[in-house]
């Protein structure tokens, strides 16, 4: 398995869930922006499941040397890369913040995804799982830079799924909704709408096994987002969402 965004608690929970379910991987490649914590995770799965793992530092905002990844191959790619940034008014007009959100969630991420997708395509097998966001379903004033980047990523995954379909590679889009993770810590989220990383991992694993195309982590989110998507624009623009 190849994991992009390995510091993500959802990514780690998914790896554990898959191993617990008895999935076998020759090696797990953990791409990360934080070597220290990810190395601890690599050790953890070695102790717990005797699973070999390699930690690879990857900073999406810097030039990437793809030669380093020549020998990396697998049949599952899990992408949990995500960067919320500052959703405040200061954040909106801070170009560095805006660029960083777009870079990490979309523009710098897609070439990396493509690089591995190409390997899957040549092998004609495998599954690519991408964590997008409900924020990408409709732009709202509270976080639309992040939302628009995720909307682009959702469209990318949808196109990739279509492109890879007759190449026997499956693409799964996950729209998590609220999750109790580092990214949202301290935000006032309704606990009934919030999934723990463990819950999310279990749901993603199920969607993975069932070869779903698009899955929301908590079912209630598919209803919420259906309503939000269908509010007429002349009303929607007046709402404070």
């Amino acid at each position: 398995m190849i994991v992009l965004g390995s510091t993500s608690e959802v990514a780690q929970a998914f790896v554990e869930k898959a191993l617990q379910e008895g999935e076998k991987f020759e090696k797990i490649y953990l791409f990360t922006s934080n070597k220290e914590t990810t190395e601890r995770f690599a050790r953890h799965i070695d102790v717990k499941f005797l699973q070999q793992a390699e930690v690879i530092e990857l900073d999406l905002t810097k030039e990437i040397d793809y030669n380093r990844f020549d020998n990396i191959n697998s049949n599952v790619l899990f992408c949990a890369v995500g960067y919320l940034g500052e959703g405040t008014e200061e954040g909106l007009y801070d170009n560095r913040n805006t660029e960083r959100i777009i870079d990490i969630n979309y523009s710098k991420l897609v070439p990396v995804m493509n690089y591995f997708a190409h390997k899957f395509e040549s092998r004609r097998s495998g599954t690519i799982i991408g964590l997008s966001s409900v924020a990408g379903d409709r732009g709202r004033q509270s976080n639309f830079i992040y939302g628009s980047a995720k909307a682009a990523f959702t469209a990318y995954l949808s196109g990739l799924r279509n492109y890879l379909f007759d190449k026997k590679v499956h693409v799964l889009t996950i729209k998590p909704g609220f999750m109790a993770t580092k990214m949202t810590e301290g935000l006032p989220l309704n606990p009934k709408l919030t999934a723990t990383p463990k819950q999310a991992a279990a749901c993603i694993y199920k969607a993975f096994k069932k070869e779903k195309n698009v899955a929301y982590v908590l079912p209630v989110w598919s209803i919420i987002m259906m309503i939000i998507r269908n509010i007429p624009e002349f009303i929607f623009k007046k709402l404070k969402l």
Partner: protein
Amino acid sequence: MKPNFTQKVTNWGNFPVVEKEMRSEDSFKKIKEFVLNHNEIIARGNGRCYGDASLGESIFSTKKLNKFINFDRLNGVIECESGVLLSDVLEIAVPQGYFLYVTPGTKFISVGGAIASDVHGKNHHAEGCFSEYVIEFKLMTESGEIITCSREENSEKFWATIGGMGLTGIILTAKFKLKNIESAYIRQESIKADNLDEIFKLFDESENWTYTVAWIDCLQKGKNIGRSILMRGEHAFQHELPQKFSKTPLRLKKKLSPTVPFYFPGFVLNALTVKIFNWLYYKKQSKKEVKNFIDYETFFYPLDAINDWNKIYGKSGFIQYQMVIPKEAGKEGMKRILETIAKSGNGSFLAVLKLFGKHNPEAYNSFPVEGYTLALDFKVNSKLKKLVDQLDAIVQEFGGRIYLTKDSMSRSSLTNYLKNIQNPKFVSLQHKRIINNNS
């Protein structure tokens, strides 16, 4: 949206509930920042203590310190971060033929919590507290420095931290020994006792068993006082197991665990329903003595099978009252305690009675002293404080003390027994309450 880390926090008893800052980090660098930038910090594991022990002005949750570091499968030594739960340890240890040397009545506590509370189990008389098997741990001190503590290195901090209720710093990782088992099953004997004399005699006779504990019906009066069932057990050897278990002796079938879906309304638990429950529990076993093999989950963690069982006490919450009375005064003291509870009518399910072995003098902050310990749940209501006061008075008269992990309202003369923990950086609400009551 700006993050706001202030939130409602409460432990297993749902009492008290406070609104305090709570943070969780997995990077040691960030934990250090947190320690340097906050005051009156207390570490909190899985929140399975009952009262205010792991509540503070600034709470550091170890829930993200949940990684294993090493498992020496040859020698049975495990090293992990402090937020790893005992259930996580069992998950990897049992299939390899290892078990925890000491476990409390729930497996959903963190390793850090086990050290800070120096937890005990049904084998205290034979194998002591959790600390006896701790080889070393890493502690973050008030300066953000990480020190290794063991019997040889920083031994002063090692012993102050054991049973020290988190008041010496934040435990980050720990290394401890596991015991060998041949099977995941326990050979159990349950013996009914009609009264206090009988149960005390049974405890003495069962001295050589590794695990002993009694369930006691604390609503009985007069000649029935102390009506109870003693359970004693040993880890079963593979050869003695019935055939259905002996083929895969270290693997248990997955069981479904029901969840209590909501807080029960206050009237559900009253003296009558508890009386009926206790009566049924006692009558369920028709014979005087039953011998059988049961899996370790059922033997050690019967309540873990019901998720969120604390909700049956309703939204107002409950306390667990656990004290110990020195052995010589045990019988008289226990009789007075039970009489007081029966009279109050504020009964509890499944009160637990146990005979502790000798106190480990090195682990001076550890709660268990040789004698009888009783643990029971009380729903929080207007009469509770008075009952606790009455019970405290008896415990004091007989020279006993209270288990801090469960305390939330006892008098400080029974709870102010920790030493070498003065440290303005790490302070819990419990500690403040105890100190303030004293002056």
